[in-house]
């Protein structure tokens, strides 16, 4: 098939599809198309069948409502957003958390004694 013939066939099939979807006459278009070289008749039949079969599907009301509730729940939304943050943000948050925990533990263990010990050591150390 030459490239021009192929382009014509593509245009014809596109026009047939658009007309079918718009509810317009398709037979008229087919008679104007060179059916022998483009197989337009056979392909138009497939287009008709696809048009009849490939129709929108409706989600169930329950599913739509449940998913909406999940998505619009503020906590869930926040969890999702946090979960999808870049890995470096997660790493930074974890490191900050560990550092905070260590600081807290050290203060609990040595918090009240540490300054006194340091002072005592300073006093005991000969100049």
């Amino acid at each position, binding site marked *: 098939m030459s490239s021009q013939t192929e382009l014509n066939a593509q245009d014809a099939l*596109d026009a047939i599809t658009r007309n079918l979807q718009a509810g317009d006459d398709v037979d008229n278009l087919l008679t104007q198309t060179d059916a022998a070289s483009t197989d337009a008749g056979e*392909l138009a039949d497939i287009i008709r069948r696809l048009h009849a079969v490939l129709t*929108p599907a409706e989600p169930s009301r329950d599913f739509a409502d449940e998913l*909406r509730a999940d*998505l619009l*729940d503020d906590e869930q939304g926040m969890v999702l957003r946090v979960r*999808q943050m870049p890995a470096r943000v997660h790493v930074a948050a974890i490191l900050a958390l560990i550092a905070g925990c260590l600081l807290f533990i050290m203060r609990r263990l040595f918090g009240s004694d540490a300054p006194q010990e340091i002072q005592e050591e300073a006093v005991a150390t000969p100049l």
Partner: protein
Amino acid sequence: MRNFFARRDSYDDLDDSELVALAKADNQAFGELYSRYLKKIYSYVYRRTGNTHDAEDLTAKVFMRALAHIGAYEDRGLPFQAWLYRIAHNIVANWRRDQSKHKIIALDDYVARSLQSEAPERLAQESEETTQLMAAVRRLPEDRQQLLLLKFIEQMPNAEIGAIMGRTEGAVKSLYHRTLLALRDDLRLLSDSASERYIDGTKV
């Protein structure tokens, strides 16, 4: 920080790009986008998966992922739905890769349609043709299936399909032509093999 003061009573008057900007911080704005595109995305996923259970599961994943990433969404002049369809396409592609056995067809709606019909014999034949056609569609490569769904279910113009698929309008037309030819050849093969009958083990 969440901008509570930006919340509105109604989002109907906003276009998609305004909604997306709000949705980065306001879940209710995302809810409006969800309302606008749930049926489209569900239809697309349903036709790709062939059953309600997986369609619901994957549709939920599409919107969850969209919600999670909307903060990073950049308006590059493409319609918002192109972004959503790309997410849906990727999720379905991953799902298909994970499937060890491919389901062939969603029967539930065809059965429902058949029940409304009058002549049982004619219906049985129609149902078989429909089944064969859908099976042939599912044997097509991913991009061709996507093209057919966007063209027939969404009835999108070629330019918009091109935006979603990352192709020019001319390339979409060309792919459509080749897809129809491939479907015709596949259905011819089926028809030829169905016309071969065996009597007492002999092909007639």
